[in-house]
């Protein structure tokens, strides 16, 4: 009589309970894998952003206050030998939308000369950089946006700005970006944008943010302090953020979703642990005489321990498979990045998230079986046989 055989018999004995437990386990696990995926996606995004060593400099008052273009020279002047910073790229919000639609695309005018260097994670090839420099209407567009509007590489597209003077400009897609975290961006040349503004009689060129690519973590921190000090008490006081902190000002603003997801994950783990524990207690109580018989015919304590633990584990793993696999499949077929706001847009089912979810399920299975298994192991054969079920 193998362990596997006993296990299958036990699970088959009360099919209804097995089914109910597996389902009650699977549903929260489905929520868990989605929640943990979001958390993992954000951690990965943060890690990759931290590797980029970029500093964002914006007006101390608020992001929508503009900083004059000449400040780029001032920032570059801090480190003329280029020992701490590689390049500075000014960006201005274009806020374009496809004519006759409501959704604003995260579109930004970037300094053409430094954009490829500062945003090296966009991964432009030599040929693409050459084309970016040559074509004034060039645009580097995130994969999600391209897919959403059925665009393709080389297309000419028109965007209508939602900020004064509400320019409608035509662009040509020269690169589709699939770097995580950049798939919802639309980058255009700021000189092209500013000239169109100027033609409309609007004020001097300006930026919302200066992005600074730094050489090392130390230089990033020292530049952060130096830049804010440089503009302190000037008409354009600045506030600098590393890229993670800058992005966090947005993710925090949409209701601290990552925090919510972490809370959700904890609650879900508690629920599945209770469900599994409950089942194991019930099934142990009902089978106490049977386990005593096993013991009486010579099963060692550790085998009884194993039988109970194995049952609990099997239930947990079955529940996990039933919850995780369909959710992971559904989310990879319909990724929420297509329609969700910023933090959700970075949700993608990763092997890590699936691994973590399975790990948690196994852990819960073990924990839930532990107490009944311990009791089974130290069962007093005679008194257990006497017990009325």
């Amino acid at each position, binding site marked *: 009589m193998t362990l596997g055989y006993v296990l299958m018999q036990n699970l088959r004995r009360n099919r209804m309970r097995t089914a109910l437990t597996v389902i009650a386990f699977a549903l929260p696990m489905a929520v868990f894998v989605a929640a943990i995926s979001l958390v993992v996606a954000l951690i990965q995004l943060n890690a990759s952003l931290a590797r980029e060593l970029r500093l964002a400099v914006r007006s101390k008052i608020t992001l929508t206050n503009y900083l004059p273009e000449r400040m780029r020279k001032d920032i570059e002047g801090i480190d003329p030998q280029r020992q701490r910073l590689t390049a500075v790229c000014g960006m201005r919000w274009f806020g374009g939308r496809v004519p006759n639609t409501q959704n604003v695309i995260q579109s930004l005018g970037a300094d053409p000369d430094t954009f490829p260097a500062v945003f090296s994670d966009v991964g432009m090839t030599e040929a693409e950089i050459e084309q970016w420099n040559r074509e004034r209407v060039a645009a580097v567009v995130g994969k999600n946006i391209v897919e959403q509007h059925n665009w393709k590489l080389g297309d000419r597209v028109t965007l209508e700005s939602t900020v004064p003077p509400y320019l409608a400009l035509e662009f040509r897609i020269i690169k589709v970006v699939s770097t995580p975290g950049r798939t919802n961006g639309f980058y255009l040349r700021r000189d092209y944008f500013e000239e169109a503004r100027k033609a409309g009689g609007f004020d001097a060129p300006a930026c919302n943010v200066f992005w600074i690519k730094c050489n090392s973590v130390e230089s990033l921190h020292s530049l952060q302090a130096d830049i804010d000090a440089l503009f302190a008490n000037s008409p354009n006081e600045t506030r600098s953020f590393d890229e993670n902190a800058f992005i966090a000002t947005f993710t925090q603003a949409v209701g601290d979703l990552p925090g919510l997801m972490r809370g959700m994950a904890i609650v879900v783990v508690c629920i599945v642990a209770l469900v599994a524990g*409950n089942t194991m207690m019930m099934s142990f109580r009902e089978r106490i005489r049977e386990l005593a018989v096993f013991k009486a015919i010579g099963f060692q304590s550790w085998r009884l321990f194993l039988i109970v633990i194995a049952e609990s584990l099997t239930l947990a793993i079955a529940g996990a498979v039933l919850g995780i696999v369909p959710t992971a499949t559904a989310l990879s077929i319909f990724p929420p990045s297509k329609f969700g706001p910023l933090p959700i847009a970075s949700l993608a089912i990763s092997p890590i998230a699936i691994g973590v979810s399975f790990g948690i399920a196994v852990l819960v299975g073990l924990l839930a079986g532990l107490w009944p298994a311990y009791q089974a192991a130290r069962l007093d054969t005679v008194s257990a046989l006497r017990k009325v079920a």
Partner: protein
Amino acid sequence: MTLTLSYHWRNLFVRKTTTALTVLVIAAVVGTFTWLLGFVVALSDSLAVAADPRKVIVMQRGSISETNSALPPEDFNKLMQISEVASDGQPLISPEMMVQVSLARVRDGGTTQANVAVRGVTEAAFKVHRNVKLLGAAFSTGAPEIIVGRKAAQQFQGLQIGQSIRLGFSGTREYKVVGYFSAAGGPMESEIWGYLPSLQSAYGRTVYSAASLRLADGADAAAVVKQIDGPAIQLEAMTESEYWQNQSSNVRFYQAVCYVLVGMMSLAAVFSVANTMFSTVAGRTREIAMLRTIGFSPGQVRLGFVIESVLLSLVGGAIGCAGCAAYLAIMGNTKDMFGASNFTTIAFEIHLTPLIIAGAMLMVAIVGVLGSLAPASRAARIQAIAALREP
């Protein structure tokens, strides 16, 4: 002859561990449920207050939020032609300028910042936005003074009366907080208001951002919107309800996510309850047979188990609600969220209103009923004689 409630109640204590674990499952689900419901309700309440059908927001063509709109005074003046606008001698039209300022949040000790809307207004604003009530002093038109929405004052640092914040294009002008205002819980309570000409000069602007119109009673809002659309005026107009609907498209997305989560977890609770009840029925076969023998009908037995299950669920629900209330009391109940396109923050507070608790308890009662249906009918089918003969 009926079974008394105390019989069911005592039954719950017979299997202490199982009952306790099931109750805790339900409590965890209900605790989460009430929090999410509170979140969703707080958001939609806040936006619903803003949905005044008698108010029309006018912006520049092509803009979708007040923050990004620029409305020159000559365009503004054209709005005076509209006859449907209410009047008290002057037409009730409020020219407004919308900018924003980054302020540190109170709840996390200032580690994160939020964009808070700053609205430049004139006396007309208080007539157009009727639910705005001054709590204390108004800003004077001569000095750099601001008044602060009730919720903004709670959520963001530096907004207590007597404190100052720096505003303006270069952020060099100090504005002193002189009073608070309420807006019936609507999104304007998350804003800062100052005197329009003063803020215009601080930001070096001659244009407005938008205008709010109060329509006369009985006026047709749709007709007004159409009239503003052209050909004589040619601006972008929408009712306030429409405006906030657009601004809150992301909010609805979160609400949908919340409902899906809640639905799945509630379903898991149903299965958990069913599991427990099946086990209870199996463990009490002889007791049920006894009840049947002394004259209780199958229907009464079935009802008995449903009642027991509902009792079990309600206990879990009560613990869940209490847990959620305790969580909110300890961890704080303030949240804020971006508008979809104006990039400013709407602050709101999660409260466990009687309605939310009633909703949660109703949900949990449904969970109890659904979870007990199958086990209860199995109990009702138990044959008295056969069961009594069992060992």
